[in-house]
């Protein structure tokens, strides 16, 4: 295991611990996004302790706000968040069930209502153009989230204003709450739709670090268009009994299941 893989594995352990401790929260969509957030916060984004409290830096919007455990655990692993992760979802904690930018410095947008974060990310990218800075804006969406009409209004807007400083990632894990996205309300082909809306589209394996890195590099090199990275992922990745199971979207593991999950993750160390 190299150091980034170690970080990602620690993030996964914290995700299951936080959700188990809170007895609520969303493990599936947090585990599917772990490699993506690890690369973003450890390599891609220009963010550190000196600028975390400012908007004068690269920013990230977790449009699928229910994956907050992944965001909090990543910020903590990167040394940008010092709250006790085990206060997640508890009364008077800064670590709200869905990200609250007013209580955590590293959270760049308050989210939780699906479809809205991507619009805010478009706004941030527009502001960066107005300010003539070269900060980049990243946003992570769920594939189910792409069923919201607002996502496509945002997509149209980003292409219209040629927001090449914006990079959206879709966590393409194939599941939403009521089942498989194809059965509930098929948003596919997501890649072709974004391409038709005028985006630069890159399809990758969302658990492959090199592919994630390469996609971000291509996005940076692309001029005159926003980039969408369609990251094929496995919901619940890393915990065998959670993988590819819609039932683990928003359910906390019990003590026994937590022990099993940690055992599997610790075996990677």
């Amino acid at each position, binding site marked *: 295991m190299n150091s980034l893989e170690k970080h990602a594995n620690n993030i996964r352990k914290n995700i299951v611990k936080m959700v188990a401790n809170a007895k609520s929260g969303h493990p599936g969509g947090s585990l599917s996004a772990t490699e993506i957030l690890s690369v973003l916060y450890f390599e891609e984004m220009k963010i550190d302790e000196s600028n975390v409290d400012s908007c004068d830096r690269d920013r990230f919007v977790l449009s699928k706000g229910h994956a907050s455990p992944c965001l909090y655990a990543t910020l903590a692993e990167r040394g940008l968040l010092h709250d006790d992760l085990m206060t997640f979802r508890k*009364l008077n904690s800064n670590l709200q*069930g*869905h990200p609250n930018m007013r209580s955590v410095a590293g959270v760049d947008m308050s989210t939780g209502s699906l479809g809205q974060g991507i619009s805010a990310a478009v706004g941030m990218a527009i502001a960066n153009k107005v300010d003539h800075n070269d900060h980049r804006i990243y946003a992570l969406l769920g594939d189910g989230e792409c069923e919201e009409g607002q996502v496509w209004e945002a997509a149209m807007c980003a292409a219209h204003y040629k927001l090449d400083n914006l990079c959206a990632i879709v966590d393409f894990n194939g599941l939403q709450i*009521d089942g498989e996205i194809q059965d509930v309300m098929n948003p596919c082909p997501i890649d072709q739709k974004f391409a038709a809306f005028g985006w630069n589209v890159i399809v990758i394996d969302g658990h492959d670090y090199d592919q994630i890195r390469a996609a971000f590099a291509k996005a940076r090199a692309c001029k005159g268009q926003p980039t969408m990275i369609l990251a094929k992922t496995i919901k619940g990745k890393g915990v065998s009994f959670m993988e590819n199971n819609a039932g683990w979207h928003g359910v906390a593991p019990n003590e026994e299941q937590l022990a099993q999950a940690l055992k599997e993750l610790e075996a990677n160390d």
Partner: protein
Amino acid sequence: MAKATREAYGEELQKLVQENDKIVVLDADLSGSTKTAMAKKVAPERFFNIGIAEGNMIGVAAGIASSGHPVFASSFAMFATGRCWEQIRNSIVYPGMNVKICGSHGGISVGEDGVSHQATEDMAIMRSIPEMRVFCPCDEWETKAIIRHVANDDKPCYVRLGRSAVENFFDENTKFEIGKVQVLNRGQKVAIFATGLMVQECMKAVSTLKAQGMEPTVVDVSCIKPLDEEGVVEILKQHDFVITAEEHNIIGGLGSAICEVACKLHPIKIRRIGIQDEFAQSGSYKELLKAYKLSDEAIVEAVKEYYQSL
């Protein structure tokens, strides 16, 4: 036995779709939580999951209703009312569509999900639409009676349902006069108008207060709009002090509705218990009720304050 009103909704809707083969049920990727999955189970051909697209769900509901089908459309109260308020106003209520918007997880008792999922303005925004009817039942039996009642008329309405289990105050045989306020406990001096989950907290408060020689009247208001003005005024006239209790912002919901009636017909001092115009937070629902002064203790305190002021 305690049961969540969303559960009661699922059970009654399941019966209704079997009795009436015109009814169509819509959901937006939350059918397990809103309990519309129970209707899907028995009438899959008349259940449509619209996906995570609440605005579209409301527009689709309008189209189905305009073709002669009653529609039940559900999501969390936050998204079913907040995400698509303007679609509800212009495509459902203005054209008078036979659509019942049933929002589960109303109020802060949603708990750990936090502010983005805690609908504390839903009754206000639904109530402000002309002709819209707004219901907020307090237990299993009242929920079932209201759901059956609205299924049998052809007008739009909003029904607010809760996530957590609540005690029963009625039983299977209770005869409901839908739209009328119901006195659950007859006391003196202080009257409490309560809705939804707060009815349970008020009834708990009554037992504490009784032991200390104070007994307020508790009135269950399950129909916030149109409000039973006559019934409300009668209660106002019989009491010296009034409290309203709702799991909702004090602006625009039950408290406002009672104040409006009092202003017009019988001015009296009213204390509004509810979310005091602030955002709540994540936490267990019992902790949240305490923290935001919505628990039985807060009601006991409010009644005592009145007695101490005498």
